């Protein structure tokens, strides 16, 4: 994009950023759930007070500057010097008013802290998140072991219910952040941090790792998809279903390639692939993105990613050129059946 064609929209964006959110999926100027909304209200409140303070000070400063300006400094003659006293009322009044505003803000902050740190009701659903360079492993737990499953990078939650997240890291510090639903919670190795999310309305909420975690920190995104309770139940059932055995010859060949080259790291439920280093690929094609939110999940992107992950995400643990040529076509064909 040239400078000319971006400047105009950028001014427009500045003007609209408070009202239009579809263009800015990471914006938390407006949020969509009880874990984020009180923060958003407090943020707007403190932001408004801050802008008011800046405006008042700017007016006072400009007033002071042009009130008694000394026109020219003469080079040799000594200038007049004002007396030492006077002006203290400014400090008394200014600090006094600031203190009153400050105390109100502190009270509001404490109340909001108490509200957002804990969900209003006990969450029925717990998702265990394991952050690792540079993707998210997700484990949906359940009292019934047969309804427990593992997936990656795409979190589904039912709307209108708080969901508990247990955050762990197996390598470095990351931070779990879905701005339109809630604030951040760091993911720190050696401890399990707990947070919660709740969405008021169905939709896709983008998230991203927020603590620098190595070279590809920029490409460690995730998505939270809030479904109606019925859709969520259907999604869960889909995830629990075993992927069908391969039908066509190519797909069978693809599965063999996968087993030979990919299964050491990746698992697919219902097949012999049971690696745990990389993301679980069961029902891969039901996901919207690849490589932790880096690419839209299309067969073309999938083939490109498998052939050459290091050019998109240098340093990722997945090596380049594991499969190529007809093997690549076959393995993509196979993965395409994992709906």
């Amino acid at each position: 994009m040239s400078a000319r064609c971006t400047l105009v929209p950028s001014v427009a964006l500045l003007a609209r950023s408070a009202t239009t959110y579809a263009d800015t999926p990471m914006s938390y100027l407006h949020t969509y759930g009880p874990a984020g909304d009180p923060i958003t209200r407090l943020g707007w409140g403190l932001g408004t007070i801050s802008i008011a303070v800046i405006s008042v000070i700017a007016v006072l400063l400009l007033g002071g500057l042009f009130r008694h300006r000394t026109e020219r400094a003469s080079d040799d003659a000594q200038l007049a010097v004002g007396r030492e006293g006077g002006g203290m009322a400014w400090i008394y009044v200014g600090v006094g008013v600031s203190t009153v505003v400050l105390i109100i803000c502190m009270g509001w902050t404490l109340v909001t802290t108490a509200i957002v740190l804990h969900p209003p009701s006990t969450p029925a659903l717990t998702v265990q998140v394991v952050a690792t360079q540079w993707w998210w492993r997700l484990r949906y737990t359940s009292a019934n072991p047969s309804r427990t499953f593992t997936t990656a990078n795409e979190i589904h939650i039912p709307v209108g219910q708080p969901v508990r997240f247990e955050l762990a890291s197996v390598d470095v510090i990351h931070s779990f952040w879905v701005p339109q639903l809630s604030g951040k919670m760091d993911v720190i190795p050696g401890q399990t941090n707990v947070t919660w999310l709740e969405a008021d309305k169905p939709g896709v909420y983008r998230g991203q790792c927020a603590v620098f975690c190595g070279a590809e920190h920029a490409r460690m995104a995730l998505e939270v998809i809030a479904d109606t309770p019925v859709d969520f139940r259907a999604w869960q059932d889909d995830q629990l279903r075993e992927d069908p055995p391969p039908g066509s010859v190519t797909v069978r060949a693809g599965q063999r390639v996968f087993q030979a080259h990919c299964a050491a790291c990746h698992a697919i439920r219902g097949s012999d692939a049971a690696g745990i280093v990389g993301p679980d690929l069961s029902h891969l094609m039901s996901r919207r993105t690849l490589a932790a939110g880096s690419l839209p999940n299309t067969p073309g992107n999938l083939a490109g990613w498998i052939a050459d992950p290091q050019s998109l995400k240098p340093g990722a643990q997945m090596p380049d050129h594991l499969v190529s040529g007809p093997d690549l076509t076959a393995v993509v064909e196979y993965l395409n059946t994992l709906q």
Partner: protein
Amino acid sequence: MTEVETFRAPLVARATDRSRSSQILEQNWKGPGGIAGWLSTVDHKEIGKRYLVTAFLFLLIGGIEAAVMRAQLTQPNEHLLTAEQYSQLFTMHGVTMIFLYALPVLSGFSNYLWPLLLGSRDMAFPRLNAFSYWVFLFAGIFLYVSFPLGAAPDDGWFNYVPYASRAYNPGINIDVYALGMVLLGISTTVGSINFIVTLLRLRAPGMSINRVPILIWGTLTASVGNLLAVPAVSLAFFMLWMDRQFGTHFFDVSAGGQPLLWEHLFWMFGHPWVYAIVLPAMGIVSDGLPTFCRRPLVGYTPVALSTVTAMVLGFGVWVHHMFATGLPAIAMSYFSATSMIIVIPSAVAVFSWIATIWTGRPVFTSAFLFFAGFVILFVIGGVSGFMTAAVPVDLQLTHTYFIVAHLHYTIIGINVFPVVGGIFYWFPKFTGRLMNETLGKWTFWVMFIGFNVGFFPMHILGLVGMPRRIYTYPEGLGWGPLNLIVTLGSYLFAIGVLMFVVNVLVSLKRGKVAGDNPWDGPSLEWSTSSPPPVYNFAVIPTVASRYPLWEARLHQGDDRSSTRQGFLLDKGRETMGTTSLDAEPDVILKMPSDAYSPLLLALALAALFVGALLHSWWLLGAALVVITLASIAWLWPQRSLSQIET
């Protein structure tokens, strides 16, 4: 001889730089000159200038790094830099600006100005002063040596473990940072000690503690803060280096180590450090504004006390960098409240500056424009900090470009603007020549507009969710247009900085010749020549008020300060030691002559750290031997210092 020399009744005389007695002083204080003089000088003015120039060079290097990063971020999916290059750039940019520019540049001002403001002939420990500079220079070079090799520190200036541990970062990158920071910490520590002792012992007779300029309060407060804060970070980096090189487990999760221990130690240091790099700069403004507003500062005492208060509170706020780490709510609420209360001392300073401008008669010089512009930038940086102090709001703001905006408003707004204004103000004292005022005013507007266009939109970028430390971002997030504006604005700001550099270089040779006191300033540095003679003052001044050169016009009391008549102290390098609070004359201090031992010790210390970095144990051993010898040479008793009985 000791008794006679240091407790003799000193001669009181009337003298100026032009007097015959001053020739004796000139001989006593003049160094050998040439290369030898350059390497061995302990003159605080030389050292101060070196600090200023070196810190400014680092500012330019850090600025180039920023410019490259901005090019990468101008639009989505840019491919100018690799992820690893970007990591090294943002790390070195932060390290450079925070450690190699922001504090050293203030040390430069303070080293040059303290003895002149206090009416002394040097700092308390001149050789330690030289040592402090050399160690700073070598630490800076040390931190940069691995950059051309593509192995610079790459985990951010905050250097969180475990990413900084050997398992995830096996190269030399982090070792360079760890050892470089321990080395730099030595410089900061000895420099701080020097400032504190100088304040307590080397003020002119009569300059009681409530008469020192606010810059002195700022640097004193920062120095005490550094003494308490630097050990935390030196220890943390040493522990990290031990973990990396010798398999200790301070931060090793698999052996029960704690990543949060690093965060606590780092921010326990990091936040006080932030105040250390702004309080002296606020002092520059508090001392500069009165000169250009033609009246004393409104509320000297509250401003001095608020300086100290901010620093004290600054030790109780570090957890606001860690609100998202899962700490208990009660602990976070405490740190949140302390962070917010800093509004109060900040408000004292802001309303004092506004009252000084409002009740004064401002003279619109370049320096004044920078000071006045600083006031509004201070407020913007202050209120954004206030927003991040609120725990829940910070859970959204932290780790985003909102914080990047906030910290640049504090470091550029509260450090760079006063520093540039301070150079305009004191350049005639440093060099004897004035800077170009017309170019100066243009420079202010280019820097002020460029800065706000470049950095204000970063707040909005943060609010629309752009995280920090990402080397690229996809389309469709709405970040592209704002990033373009940020890049263009920051380049405009860079042009302003270059205009300033050109002004300095041209004015050095061609600037209008300044008299002793071109701005009609009130404090002692304006009573001596521009540039000052090597001995600073022909006689030790006596001080009767906060504004010695304005007394006649302020009509306060009957006592008058005296800059022409005072203790001559011409038997060798001498200055007056005074009592800590009231500044009663107490003892004649014998000051050391120029020496190579500080340079030698600093070189050996640098070699020690290079040896440790390369695991070159013979180099490390040799360095230890030289360190011992240099220390003995340094401390060897000298007759000229009355350390030998006769």
